């Protein structure tokens, strides 16, 4: 009997569902970075606001990369529904603590998907995920570096102004 499942897509139902969840997670990240950007803007951290807005765009890029992959493989990419985005944050530092936590969650999620791909012997998707795993090295590094600024510079006096000024310069050189 003809294998109609395989004719439709090389993705198993499980992997397709996992990728769609990841699409949602990236979209959510994008939305949260944008609300962080707005909070920073309202509180006078202009550089951070710009940095977070750019970050939001990158997350949307990640979402689209996954989205196209699912469709390209014959699957059905689902445009995600995102609700309950926090609009208020405890503090300037709190914003970046949350950013790091979010990146850690994303890394964990990609590791889980890679593990499932390996078990399902889906090496095409496994290969596709390498780009994201690599990207997470940079994402976590930058988020951690920014948090360190709070320790190195200190928040007293003009500290927060200094921190804000230094945030755009944080980058990952391999």
């Amino acid at each position, binding site marked *: *009997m*003809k*294998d109609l*499942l395989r004719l439709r897509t090389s993705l198993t139902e499980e992997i397709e569902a996992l990728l769609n969840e990841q699409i949602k997670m990236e979209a959510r990240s994008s939305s949260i970075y944008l609300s962080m950007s707005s909070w920073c803007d309202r509180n006078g951290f202009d550089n951070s606001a710009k940095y977070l807005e750019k970050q939001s765009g990158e997350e949307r890029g990640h979402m689209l990369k996954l989205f196209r992959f699912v469709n390209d493989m014959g699957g*059905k990419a689902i445009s995600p529904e995102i609700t309950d985005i926090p609009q208020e944050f405890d503090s300037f530092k709190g914003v970046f603590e949350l950013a790091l936590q979010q990146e850690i969650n994303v890394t964990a999620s990609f590791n889980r998907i890679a593990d499932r791909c390996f078990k399902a012997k889906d090496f095409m998707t496994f290969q596709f995920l390498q780009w994201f795993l690599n990207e997470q090295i940079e994402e976590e590094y930058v988020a951690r570096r920014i948090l360190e600024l709070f320790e190195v510079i200190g928040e007293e006096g003009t500290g927060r102004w200094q921190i804000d000024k230094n945030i755009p310069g944080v980058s990952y050189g391999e």
Partner: protein
Amino acid sequence: MADNNYSQLIEVFSTEHGTVYQCNRNNNFVVEFAGNCSAFKTGNFLDFTRRVNAINLSEMAKNTSRHADIVILMLHYTERCFVLTMKDVIRLKELLCGAKAMIELNSIVNECLRQYAF
């Protein structure tokens, strides 16, 4: 699940209340249930199975209001509107889950045979 020479329609799974066929000419699935036939493309068949499986039977049983006695499934990919009683839902779940298992099994068999294809 042997191919039938006279027809492109292959029986995938059958119960007392319905049958699922695979059509090798149109590459789709035909669900015969409660005296009606509907054709589904692969992705839509999987979606349909998921939706039927998602129907909460215990919720239907618990809820005493009259509208809870039936479930209406209106799907954009088929003309047919499914109006299902609890009994129908149980029967349809059985049919679709059985068919899906056979379709997956067929996929596994094909995957295994592929290594001898060359």
